[in-house]
């Protein structure tokens, strides 16, 4: 309980003599002023609607729960071996990780570029920033449909390319088994880059002006001042942006569903698309198994990434 005793009221911490009031044991004081039951409703809701279903995941992934029969039996790791045997498990895992990494890279690159471009606080820049925030407000489903229309083989993008190059151009942006995942990741990044831009702008604002001035006096070029001073000080913003982009895309669904639905040939079928599809087919146990896989993937991937980024912040 050494930590509890070290929590005096901050007001007294500056004085060198101990506080004149006789000290109560810290626990009892808090019990009256900050009762633990204030936490109870939050814990109850989290317990019922978040942790209990997660616990169920670890149970029902090992059963044959489906819509075709009423009883549920334990089947061991059959669901996992089935999914591994037909290659679905690893392809869905690989696609989800590739998608998440691509989104994290694009979203941060776009957001950072926009923040640098629109850094100065002019009226025009403020208007343009708001413009780039519109996709953040739009429903991801809607964004997906817009790009589905834009990227059709006879769609507007190809027409624009034809008009510029004066050559016929009929590329199926959303029908390529190799590159469509990249295209969809770019769309995901397009939707969220405004938010990343805001975070980077806030990060740029925290950099003290005199630091840059000192570098300028020392003869550093703008370019060098940028890389040597600004970019390391942006580390907290990078942490936040990379973490949210990774988490958002690993839990992604809407944009992929609205653009490709997992196709072509299931090359963009991230875990949540698989879960949605198999759930719709009544294969609840398979959907649960993939839900558990997603849970483990995020738990295994997110925590080390966040710890790594935090550590890098400390070094810089």
């Amino acid at each position: 309980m050494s930590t509890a005793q070290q929590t005096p009221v901050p007001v007294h911490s500056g004085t060198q003599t101990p506080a004149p009031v006789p000290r109560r044991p810290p626990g009892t004081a808090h019990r009256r002023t900050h009762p633990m039951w204030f936490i109870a409703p939050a814990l109850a809701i989290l317990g019922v609607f978040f942790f209990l279903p997660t616990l169920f995941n670890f149970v029902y992934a090992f059963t044959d729960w489906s819509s075709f029969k009423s009883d549920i039996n334990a089947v061991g790791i059959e669901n996992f071996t089935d999914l591994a045997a037909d290659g679905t498990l690893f392809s869905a895992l690989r696609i989800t990780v590739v998608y998440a990494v691509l989104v994290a890279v694009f979203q941060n690159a776009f957001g950072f570029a926009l923040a640098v471009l629109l850094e100065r606080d002019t009226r025009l820049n403020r208007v343009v920033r708001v413009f780039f925030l519109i996709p953040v407000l739009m429903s991801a489903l809607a964004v997906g449909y817009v790009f589905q229309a834009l990227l059709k083989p006879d769609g507007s993008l190809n027409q624009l390319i034809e008009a510029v190059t004066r050559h016929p151009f009929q590329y199926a942006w959303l029908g390529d088994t190799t590159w469509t995942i990249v295209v969809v990741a770019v769309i995901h990044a397009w939707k969220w880059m405004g938010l990343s831009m805001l975070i980077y702008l806030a990060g740029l604002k925290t950099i003290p002006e005199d630091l840059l001035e000192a570098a300028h006096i020392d003869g550093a070029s703008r370019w060098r001042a940028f890389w040597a001073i600004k970019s390391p000080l942006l580390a907290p913003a990078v942490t936040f942006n990379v973490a949210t982009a990774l988490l958002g895309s690993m839990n992604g669904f809407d944009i992929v569903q609205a653009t490709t639905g997992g196709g072509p040939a299931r090359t963009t079928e991230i875990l949540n698309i698989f879960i949605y599809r198999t759930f719709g087919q009544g294969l609840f146990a398979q959907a649960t198994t993939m839900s558990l896989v997603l849970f483990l993937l995020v738990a295994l991937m997110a925590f080390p990434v966040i710890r790594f980024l935090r550590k890098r912040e400390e070094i810089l």
Partner: protein
Amino acid sequence: MTTAPRLSDARVWTRLQPFVAVLLGAIVIGIPLWLVVVTAGKSQGEALAPNLALPSQWHLWENFATVWTAGEIPAAFFGSLLVVVPTVAGVLVVGSLASWVLARRATRLTAVLYALAISGIVLPPAVVTVVLLLRHLGLAGTALGMIGVYTGIYLSTVIFFVTGFVRTIPVSLEEAAQIDGAGPFTVFRRVVLPMLRPVLATATILICLYVWNDVFYAFFVVGGRLDTLPLNLFRVASAGLYLNNWHLVFAYVILMSLPLVAVFVVAQRKIISGITSGAVK
């Protein structure tokens, strides 16, 4: 004279930057939005292959009227409200109550509880088994079940933001009220809650954004039983794209996006400063 060219470089960029910014905005954001508006204004024949040309005759209001009934927008709008409003109110009240105590009591137990409470920011919710759970609770397909699921998912975010904020508020104000004999609930309501306003505003915006636009969790919990705007957009689009009704899909997109855009335009500056202040400390 080595600095002269560098200075002019900077000046060139200052001159050029407004044009680059406007051009980029027009291409990257303007073209997709333009496509939405002109396609939503076209007749079905013209909208078969969506392109950037202006409609030969504007049918915007007719298309709005069509999706208003076909997409059951009034029902979906109230369905969305029915879910969003209690969810936001619930997470804010329950979350800030817990955050206050979690921030002020520095014991090992509260540290563990805090870690548990914010783990939901990272961990994905179990969407399939939550359906089973709701069935056991008799809440399957109901708005109440949906509210419970959303509250469970987003409570972590609120607790994370609010606890961080409470730690920056000095305790002395609370103590003054305590000496005057105020109980914990009065202290919370009269002293703490008013000071939390900025962070609660941020949390409100983020959670409205997530819940208003969510379709994935809604599919599992209330799909087919309750209309929400994104669920109906999905229905309209799934049927509409099959029939190549792009004009209706985009008319729906416009109507659905308007409420959030309106809120954003009105409270734009507050929203931007709210979102950014929470992230970079």
